[in-house]
C-alpha cells in the first residue's frame, strides 16, 4: 500500500535548441492542417509527414545507432513528443511504432526482427497498429480468443481484432494471440503470445469502422487461416501477457495522455480576451497543465532509468485524461456565437466528439482507477 511518488524532473539541457528546430519544422508543415487534423493528432495518419519527421531523426531517437536510431535520451524524445502534440500534429503513422512496437522489438525481438523492422520504423516508412482488443475482449483483455495454432514453419491465425486504429493504412501489427488454452479459467493470462503480423497477409480482411464524427479511423480485422512464419513470434511463446502489460507502461506514460486538447486552448486564447470571465478559467487550465506536465515528465524520467512505472503511468493517464476531456467542455462555456471564430468552434466540435475516446483508449478510466486502488492497498 502507499501513495505514489513523483520526483521532479528537468527537461534536458539541449531542450531549447531542439524546440527551436521542432517549432520551425512544425510551423512549416502545419500551415494547412485543418482543425480536424489537429483534433485527431496522434490518431490521425499522414505518412508523408512521418517520413519528414523520420528524416530529421525524430523517430526511434533513443534506439541504438546500429539500427539507425539516435542514441539520444528519453528526455530528448519527450521534448519532441510534447512539441508535436502541443500543435496537434498528425503523428499517427509513426506514433505506435516509435512508442511501443519498436521498443518491444528492441527489448525482446530477435536480431533478425530488429534489423528488418527498426530501420523502417525510424525512416517513417513502416506504420504499426496495436492488436489487442477483440469484439468480446475489451477491458477484460486476457479473455481474448483469437488463436494462433502451430503448423509446419509457423502459425495459423483464426479470429478477430477490433478498434484497431489506422489498420487500413498501417503495414504491420503486433497482435496478442492465444497460443495454448488457459490451464483453467482463472489462469487466462497464461498461453498468450505476441506476433508481428503483416497486414497484407492472405486471409486477412480489414473492415473500416467509421467513428461518431464520421471519420474513418478504426477497423475490424478478420483472420481467416492467416499464416505467420515462426520468425514473427516476438519474445517467448506463452509470455505474451507479461510482455504486453510491460508495453502498456510505455503506452500510458506519454504526454499524449494530457495534451490531446491543448491545441484548442491555444487556438481559442486570443478570442477569449473579449470574455471577462475567461481569466479565471484559463488560469485554472494552465495551472493544471503545468502540473500534469511535471507529473508526465516524472514518469518519463523513471522510464529513462529503466524502471517500469506502470502504476504511476496509470495515475497520470487518469488525471490527464480527465483534464484533456474536460477542456473542450470548459472552454465552450466561454464561447460566444457572435464573437468566437468559426475555426475555433470547428476544433471545439471535433474535440468534443473525439474526447470521448480519451478515457477509453489505452485503458478505460475505470480500469486505471482499479489499478490505482490496488496500489493504495484496497482489495
Amino acid at each position, binding site marked *: 500500500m502507499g501513495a505514489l511518488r513523483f520526483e521532479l524532473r528537468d527537461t534536458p539541457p539541449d531542450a531549447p535548441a531542439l524546440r527551436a528546430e521542432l517549432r520551425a519544422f512544425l510551423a512549416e508543415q502545419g500551415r494547412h492542417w485543418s482543425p480536424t487534423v489537429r483534433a485527431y493528432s496522434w490518431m490521425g495518419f499522414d505518412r508523408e509527414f512521418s517520413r519528414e519527421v523520420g528524416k530529421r531523426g525524430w523517430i526511434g531517437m533513443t534506439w541504438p545507432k546500429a539500427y539507425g536510431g539516435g542514441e539520444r535520451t528519453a528526455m530528448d524524445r519527450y521534448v519532441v513528443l510534447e512539441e508535436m502534440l502541443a500543435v496537434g500534429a498528425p503523428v499517427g503513422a509513426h506514433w505506435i511504432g516509435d512508442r511501443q512496437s519498436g521498443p518491444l522489438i528492441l527489448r525482446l525481438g530477435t536480431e533478425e526482427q530488429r534489423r528488418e523492422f527498426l530501420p523502417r520504423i525510424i525512416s517513417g516508412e513502416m506504420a504499426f497498429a496495436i492488436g489487442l482488443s477483440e469484439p468480446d475482449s475489451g477491458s477484460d483483455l486476457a479473455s481474448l480468443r483469437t488463436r494462433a495454432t502451430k503448423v509446419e514453419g509457423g502459425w495459423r491465425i483464426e479470429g478477430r481484432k477490433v478498434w484497431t486504429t489506422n489498420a487500413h493504412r498501417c503495414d504491420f501489427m503486433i497482435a496478442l494471440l492465444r497460443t495454448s488454452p488457459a490451464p483453467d479459467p482463472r489462469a487466462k493470462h497464461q498461453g498468450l503470445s505476441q506476433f508481428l503480423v503483416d497486414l497484407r497477409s492472405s486471409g486477412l480482411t480489414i473492415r473500416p469502422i467509421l467513428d461518431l464524427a464520421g471519420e474513418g479511423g478504426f477497423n475490424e480485422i478478420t483472420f481467416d487461416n492467416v499464416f505467420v512464419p515462426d520468425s514473427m513470434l516476438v519474445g517467448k511463446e506463452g509470455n505474451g501477457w507479461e510482455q504486453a502489460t510491460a508495453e502498456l507502461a510505455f503506452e500510458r506514460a506519454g504526454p499524449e495522455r494530457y495534451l490531446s486538447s491543448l491545441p484548442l486552448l491555444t487556438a481559442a486564447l486570443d478570442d477569449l480576451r473579449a470574455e471577462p470571465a475567461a481569466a479565471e478559467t484559463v488560469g485554472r487550465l494552465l*495551472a493544471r497543465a*503545468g502540473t500534469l506536465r511535471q507529473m508526465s515528465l516524472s514518469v518519463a524520467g523513471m522510464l529513462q532509468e529503466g524502471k517500469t512505472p506502470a502504476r504511476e503511468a496509470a495515475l497520470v493517464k487518469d488525471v490527464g485524461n480527465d483534464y484533456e476531456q474536460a477542456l473542450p467542455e470548459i472552454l465552450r462555456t466561454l464561447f460566444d456565437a457572435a464573437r468566437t471564430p468559426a475555426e475555433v468552434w470547428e476544433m471545439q466540435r471535433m474535440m468534443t466528439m473525439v474526447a470521448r475516446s480519451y478515457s477509453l483508449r489505452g485503458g478505460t478510466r475505470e480500469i486505471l482507477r482499479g489499478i490505482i486502488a490496488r496500489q493504495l492497498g484496497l482489495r
Partner: protein
Amino acid sequence: MSDELRTILLEQVERLLADQAGPDVLRRAEAGEWPEALWAEMEALGLPLALASEEMGGAGLTWEDAVAVWQVLGRHGAPVPLAESMAAAGLLAAAGIAPPPGLLALVAPQQAGLPWGRRAQHLVAPWEGKLVLRPATGMKEGRDGFSRLPMDTCLFGPDSASALLPPALGEEPTLLAGAMIHAALIAGALEAVLDTSVDYANTRKQFGRPIGGFQAVQQLLAQAAGEVAAAGVAAAQAGRAASRRGLAAAEFEIASAKVVAGEAAGKVAAIAHQVHAAIGFTDEHHLHLFTRRLWAWRDACGTERFWARRIGEAALARGGAALWPDLTARDEATG
C-alpha cells in the same frame, strides 16, 4: 541542501511531529492551548530560522527544502505556525536583516489574520518597497472559522529594522510565500486524509466485507489519489522554482500550486467524508481535524480564483501563440 541531508531532516521532522502532534495536540491547540513542548523542540532543532543563511544564524535551507518540511507539517495538521515563522526568517535574511529569535508572524494580503499571532514576538511585512520587522503589539485575538486555530489581528509597532526589498523577492514576497506555504500544507494534509480514508475503507465492513472491496469506493479513492499526487507535485514544483529563480520569478508555479492544491482540497475532503460516512461527520472522529484545515488553507493567502485570475490574465495578455512556449520556457530559462 543535498537530497541525502533533506531526507534526514524530513525524517527528523516526521518523528518529532509523530511524537508530539497527534489529534489530541490538535484539539488542544484548537481550544487555544499553545503546543509549547512541540515548539520548544522545533526551536531546539533550529527549524524556525532554518531558511535563513548560515551567516544570518540559519541553516541555509532552500525554498524547495522548506516546502518538503511544510508538507510533513501539513500531514500532521500543523498545530504551530512553523511554516510562517520559517518563511518570515528566510525573507528577512534575504533582505539582509538578521532574523530575531522567537515566533515571527508573516503578514500577507488575502489573509484573515495571523495564525497564533498572540504568540508572535515580531511581524514581518512588505511596506512601501521595503521589508520591515516590527514588534507585534496590540494583538486582537480571534479564531479561524474552519480550523478553530487562533487567528489574530494586530497593530504595527515602530520598525525594529527595515531593508529595501531585493528584486528576487518582488513586491509581495509574503503573499507568494504564504501561498506556497498553504499549497504545501494542503499537499501534506491531503496525504493524511487519503491514508485515513484507505484505512477506514479497509476496516469498515458492510455486506460482509470491507467497503474498500467495492468498486464504487475504490473508484472514489483512486480519484482522490490522483488529486493528492497532483497537489504534491504542484507544491514541490513551486518550491523548486522559487529556489532556482527567486520568489518573484516563481509566481506562475506558486500560483499554480495554490490553484491545484486548493481544487484538490475541496475534492478530496468531499471524497473522504463520503467514504467515512456518518462517523466522519462526528466531532469524535479525527477526520475533521484535517478536512477543516483543508478548507481553511485553501482560502488562505489567495483562493483558487485569486491565483487563477493572475495566471489567466497574464496568459491572455501574452496571447495564444505564446501559451505553449511560455509553459515550456519556465523550466528551461534557468536550467
